[in-house]
């Protein structure tokens, strides 16, 4: 220390100024403060904007999938073509393949166009491109179900082809059809004229929500219903296995386990499993359940098992937290009146922790519902979901897909009409997730206790 006066060391003192006036250094510091604050706000807003953008594009692109264009067409089911003998026997009619029905539909379409007074250069065979290639099968099924229709002219509501559907939804334009082999602008003139007469209409698309996946050529007929069933079956397996297993494991670790190396090892294991990439669980499922145990590939049962192992750590972590939040006085009181430790836990602690456990289970299942990668490895790919399973038990073991895998399959297909389906499938998936999370929030609000 020196005895030098302070101002000799610091140089000449600045001239005294008003306290109300910020000196340049303070002003700069205040500006830096405001800037930093603005950065923080901007970062937050960017994050929220990303959310809005994401949800916006999902809703904007996905809503059209819930409506579908149909053409109502009177088809003459000529007896000469279908059942020349007039037997009325479905077995005889079934001899006419869908190609035979194609001819009937082409004729009906040509007739409708002529009656509507639409002049077009298109051949009847080309005109049929307006309709889904599944239209013939639709008519055939109706006739086989009711052979008495043969000989009559019946009005059918047939699916329009995906290009026509896209045109009415604004996805397909005349310009975009310029180099499209499936449909020409001339077709659109016919569509316009038919729409003016009310023969082409857009209605609610129940087949999308309830139906099965269709072949690559028929996006207009593809639905996510069977894959949804697969997802629900898997969720049943997950709920049935991961809840009891997870709760039992948590009870042991939280209430009974002695503090030693072994239980430490289990805990480290659970913490690490929670962070293992989901695709690794897919590899485990493929090797352990399908190759080693010989369970059927693509089965929701196997998918459920894989997702169970994946959600188990989540459920254990949440369950332990809610067991921990039950105050020790509850246990002490139970032990004090002669209950065993097992009775104290199962009769008193567990019921009090149940709301928290259920909330955790729902959150874990919501995560499992959106998981895709492990399902692809065990064969639950989208195109498998083209037939509904035969019965309740069969739905666990017969090949099926799941909602996210179906969405992935559609996203991979080349036809842009499938993109609309993929976005629509996401809306449904998010609705399920929203309902599950809402359930979790309500459960917490209703039953949670603060000690």
């Amino acid at each position, binding site marked *: 220390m020196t005895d030098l006066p302070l101002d000799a060391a610091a140089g000449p003192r600045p001239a005294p100024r008003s306290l109300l006036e910020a000196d340049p250094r303070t002003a700069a510091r205040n500006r830096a403060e405001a800037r930093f604050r603005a950065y923080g706000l901007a*970062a937050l807003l960017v994050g929220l904007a990303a*959310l809005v953008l994401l949800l916006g594009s999902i809703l904007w692109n996905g809503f059209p999938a819930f409506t579908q264009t149909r053409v109502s067409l009177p088809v003459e089911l000529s007896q000469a073509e279908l059942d020349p003998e007039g037997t009325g026997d479905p077995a005889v009619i079934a001899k006419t393949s869908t190609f035979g029905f194609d001819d009937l539909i082409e004729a009906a379409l040509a007739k409708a166009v002529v009656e509507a007074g639409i002049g077009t250069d298109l051949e009847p065979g080309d005109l049929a491109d307006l309709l889904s290639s599944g239209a013939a099968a639709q008519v055939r099924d109706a006739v086989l179900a009711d052979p008495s229709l043969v000989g009559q002219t019946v009005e059918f509501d047939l699916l329009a082809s995906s290009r026509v559907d896209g045109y009415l939804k604004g996805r397909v334009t005349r310009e975009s059809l310029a180099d499209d082999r499936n449909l020409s602008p001339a077709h659109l003139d016919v569509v316009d004229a038919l729409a003016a007469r009310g023969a082409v209409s857009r209605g609610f698309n129940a087949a999308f929500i309830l139906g099965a996946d269709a072949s690559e050529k028929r996006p207009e007929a593809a639905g996510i219903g069977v894959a949804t069933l697969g997802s629900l079956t898997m969720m049943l397996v997950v709920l049935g296995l991961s809840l009891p297993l997870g709760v039992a*494991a948590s009870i042991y670790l939280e209430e009974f386990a002695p503090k030693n190396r072994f239980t430490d090892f289990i805990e480290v294991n659970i913490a690490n499993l929670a*962070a293992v990439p989901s695709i690794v669980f897919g*590899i485990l499922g493929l090797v352990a359940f399908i190759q080693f145990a010989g369970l059927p590939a693509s089965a929701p049962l196997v998918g459920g098992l894989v997702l169970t192992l994946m959600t188990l750590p989540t459920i254990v972590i949440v369950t332990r937290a809610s067991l921990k939040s039950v105050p020790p006085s509850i246990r002490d009181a139970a032990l004090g009146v002669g209950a065993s430790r097992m009775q104290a836990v199962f009769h008193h602690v567990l019921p009090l922790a149940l709301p928290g456990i259920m909330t955790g289970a729902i959150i874990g299942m919501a995560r499992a519902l959106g998981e895709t*990668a492990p399902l692809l490895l065990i064969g639950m790919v989208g195109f498998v979901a083209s037939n509904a399973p035969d019965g309740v038990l069969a739905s666990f073991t017969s090949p099926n897909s799941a909602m996210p895998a179906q969405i992935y399959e559609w996203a991979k297909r080349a036809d842009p009409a499938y993109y609309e389906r993929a976005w629509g499938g996401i809306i449904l998936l998010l609705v399920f997730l929203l309902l599950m999370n809402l359930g979790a929030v309500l459960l917490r609000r209703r039953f949670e206790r603060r000690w």
Partner: protein
Amino acid sequence: MPSGWLLLLVLLIAALGYLAGRRRALASTGGRIRDLHSLPGAYGWNVALAVLIPSLLVLALWSALAPVALDRMVAPLMEGQEGEMSLLMSDVRRVAGGLELLGRDAVLDSEGLRDRLGGVGVALGEEVTPATLAAAQAYDRLQHRSRLLLDVLVLALALGAAAWAVRRTGPELRARNEVERSFLGLLVAAALVAIATTVGIVFALLFNTGKFFSLYPASEFFLGTTWSPSFGGGSTLGILPLAWGTLYISLISLLVAVPLGLLSAIYLSEYASPRLRAWAKPMLEVLAGIPSIVYGLFALLAVGPALLAVFGQGGFGIMQGGTAAITAGLVMGIMLIPFVSSLSDDIINAVPQAMRDGSLAMGATPSETIRQVVIPAALPGIMGAILLAASRAIGETMIVVLGAGAAASLSLNPFDAMTTITAKIVSQLTGDSDFNSPEALVAFALGMTLFVVTLLLNVLALWIVRRFREQYE
């Protein structure tokens, strides 16, 4: 007897055992519960558990091991190369299943068997050879015998255990203690599932990785700079382009997620009013609840085309297609924002208030306090959070499968298509390749690499975060 019926029968015996045990306990004291050691229900449970635990254990073990043993016993009947055996055996199993449907003794020769099997819904790729038929018949016989043996064994075990446990029942038996010991055993078994899962993962990966390295040299896998699988054989399978793609895309995603996540966490915890915080924080966390397939679709169909419009042929001309490293990286970054922000939020809140108060009292502005006091104090924890986010990014699959493209390249340009380890695991294992070819087995080596890297990152991150917490507790 199908195993479903066997299971039901065992459950029925257990239920009857419960009633019998309870009844015998009550009868032994003439109906006076207070003379019993335990409550009557405990005696019932004692019998039921004595039935269930051994018979279900035998049932499970037998069902797991019998197929393997059957294969071992039938395989010598078939002649085939090393690689074909698994295919041949699956044919044998399929034919054996068909024989059962047709009636065991109805089939004597392989002539026209394929069509008859087709008639009962068993589709076969080719005609059944006499050797296959003989093996299938042997398989079917052995399987029949094994099932019969299992039925007898399980039922005898269940009934025997029930009789033994009922006989032991009396006022002196400490039924509650015994039942609780069994229950504790069940709880431990549930906790062991976590270890079993880890062991299963390690074995599944190690076993198949070993098979892969016996077909393909490890040095070429780890040091190879080209990735070009061809399913006809003769592929070059070097991991470096995939590892590069993985690291590059993860880096882009962290460059997006870390600044945005960290700054939002700081704003929310230090500046935002309670009202803003109450709705902005949950909104941000909605991003974390959205499944990755949704982000993948967003990358493929929304972000990719938008970037292409700016940087593609019409704009800067440096981007060839919508799927590129930058597309996947940006979208993955958005996905990781809430992950980084909620972890950092916890960590920033764990910094003691006294440190902030001290700094503010010395005349520092709030931002100076944050930058020079709070962040340095929270730095280890934030590093841990970033490592956790990195491990998430490396293991993420659907976004890169849909958004990053399929070409493996060692490019420096973020606008080029790249691919990652996870994306290639999916494509190698969902293709039509033979399971024992190096092209399919390489997926396990990739999975092993992925597992080891993410495990190390997680262990390191958890260790850092825990040490940080202890520092301020």
